[in-house]
């Protein structure tokens, strides 16, 4: 096209070049509006809330295979050992503490007939083993355990009377989600795990052709049961509790837990919590929704495996497990451990509630993954800055039972759980984590960039932007009013959890 032809006027008086200029300007406006509209639609799109849109895993687009490594990204730095759940598993210890604390106070009241002054003199020596030795080594945990009972829980009860009605829909939602699910296993492994036929006789295992094909089968079935992610690993005995927790069928929880021969493999399944309530933690979210689903998935998987004649046992948090679930999931290649102690997956960040099935069905295992979380968490610290209890360290990793990791102060963490309204728990570290974002183009792009940038520059830039763009309340604002807070949540709740819009609060 010649220059002259551009200048030729059309019958309407508009030459080609003028038309192109006007069309270009108009296209810039329309195209720009289109990009904004695309962005808005992407931001709103419920399909980017992974784990709730289907049961096929079709939208789990992260190319995991490119990030497989031979060893998990945690380090072994000393002689490893199993956790003594009686003292180091916070729920178990707090339960033991509560029982013993009441006994100690009751005995003292019986002696002097008065209440009050006896509390000040509680020492580690007042407790029986193993709490006695533990509190002597960790006296600050005794203080925190007493603080929970004597100060935090009474204040929460008082504030619940004053403010609790605001969160009745959140509690109703949590209770409803937790109301459905199989009963927790309350039988020991030799009773529960082994397959039986309809007459109660030991089951005969079917002959399976190939462990790799069986692994594919197990994953496909677990997805059909509703699991968002599935991974398989050989069970590292270090992750099994050294002593069993209460309520799992072990006759004597003071005897070491013997790991059954058939806990050879661990299959990890799980789903995310409902996303909008999760962002509205700590007051509106709940773990019940995901744990309930994970429990159903794992129990179905256990039944499936037993029907094939192999042993299986589910381990599902909140309390029904004989092992630490997150490191097993890391071994199974589902993610890496973050600064907050929670596993971070590429797909759903740390919004993932896993369950484990231990089994002896022959399986091919998955390799762990490394997608840059360790470097990212070293600089990010968003969770540590947002944590109201100060349980997440700002500093370096430490040795914990022979492994180098960020050491979480679980007593501080649980004390905050016990000091906020709404549902049991906190989950702020999950909500604020930069990896826990919707799976839209923006956050997928950030994930791909940080996972593939060896310089670490993008991690620092994106972390800075994250802190500037996605601020939350000050940590102290998350507390209840009587502890100096404002019952804050990280984000506003979804419309269907706003009690004040549905309930006359007077």
């Amino acid at each position, binding site marked *: 096209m010649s220059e002259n032809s551009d200048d030729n006027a059309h019958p309407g008086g508009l030459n080609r*070049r003028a038309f192109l200029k006007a069309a270009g300007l108009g296209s810039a406006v329309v195209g720009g509006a289109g990009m904004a509209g695309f962005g808005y*639609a992407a931001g709103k799109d419920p399909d980017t809330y992974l784990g709730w849109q289907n049961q096929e895993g079709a939208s789990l687009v992260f190319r995991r295979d490119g990030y497989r490594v031979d060893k998990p990204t945690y380090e072994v730095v000393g002689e490893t050992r199993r956790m003594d759940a009686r003292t180091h598993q916070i729920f178990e210890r707090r339960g033991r503490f509560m029982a013993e604390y009441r006994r100690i106070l009751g005995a003292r009241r019986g002696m002097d007939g008065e209440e009050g002054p006896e509390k000040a003199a509680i020492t580690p020596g007042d407790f029986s083993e193993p709490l006695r030795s533990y509190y002597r080594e960790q006296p600050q945990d005794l203080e925190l355990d007493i603080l929970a009972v004597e100060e935090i829980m009474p204040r929460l009860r008082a504030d619940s009377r004053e403010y609790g009605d605001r969160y009745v829909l959140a509690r109703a939602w949590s209770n409803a989600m937790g109301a459905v699910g199989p009963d927790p296993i309350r039988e020991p492994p030799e009773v529960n795990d082994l397959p039986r036929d309809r007459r109660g006789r030991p089951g005969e295992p079917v002959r399976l052709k190939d462990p790799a094909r069986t692994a594919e089968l197990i994953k496909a079935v677990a997805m059909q049961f509703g699991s968002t992610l599935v991974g398989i690993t050989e069970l590292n005995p270090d992750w099994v509790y050294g002593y069993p927790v209460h309520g799992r069928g072990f006759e004597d929880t003071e005897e070491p837990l013997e790991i059954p021969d058939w806990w050879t493999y661990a299959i990890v399944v799980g789903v995310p919590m409902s996303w909008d309530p999760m962002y509205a933690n700590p007051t509106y979210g709940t773990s019940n929704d995901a744990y309930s689903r994970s429990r159903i998935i794992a129990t179905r998987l256990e039944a499936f495996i037993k029907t094939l004649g192999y042993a299986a046992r589910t381990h599902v948090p909140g309390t029904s497990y004989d092992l630490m679930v997150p490191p097993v999931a890391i071994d199974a290649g589902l993610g890496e451990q973050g600064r907050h102690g929670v596993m971070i997956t590429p797909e759903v960040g740390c919004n993932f509630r896993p369950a484990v099935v231990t089994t002896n069905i022959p399986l091919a295992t998955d390799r762990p993954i490394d997608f840059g979380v360790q470097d990212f968490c070293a600089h990010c610290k968003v969770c540590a800055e947002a944590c109201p209890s100060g349980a997440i360290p700002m500093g370096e990793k430490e040795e914990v039972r022979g492994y180098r990791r960020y050491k979480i102060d679980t007593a501080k963490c649980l004390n905050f759980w016990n000091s906020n309204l709404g549902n049991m728990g906190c989950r702020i570290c999950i909500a604020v984590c930069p990896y826990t974002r919707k799976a839209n183009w923006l956050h997928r792009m950030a994930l791909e960039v940080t996972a593939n940038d060896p310089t670490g520059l993008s991690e620092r830039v994106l972390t800075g932007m994250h802190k500037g763009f996605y601020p939350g309340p000050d940590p102290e604002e998350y507390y209840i009013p009587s502890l100096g807070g404002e019952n804050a949540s990280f984000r506003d709740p979804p419309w269907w959890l706003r009690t004040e819009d549905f309930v006359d609060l007077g």
Partner: protein
Amino acid sequence: MQIFTSGMFWFVEGILFMVVILGTRAWVRDRGLAVSAWTWALFVLWLGFAGFTLAFVGTSLGEGEPTAATRGGLLFGMIAIVSGVGIWRLFGAGEQRDRERVGSVESGS
């Protein structure tokens, strides 16, 4: 909303993008500017960045993150404006306008 996630949307966006390029080319010829290939490449990149900025604002609003939309929009918008002025100068349009202004002043005096 579904139109924004369809393949047709990106087809139309592509057409609009090309029309913007053609319109700019017409404007360049109209002004008699000589624009190098790498300046055109920078301009295309700038258009992509401007589109990213708008999409970022839209996405943040859609996610219910107005602070991110505001702060990100300001940050990326400022970068887009500053770099846009730079590309404007690379096109030579600014210098030409300066020359025209000087010329009109001289002829007027």
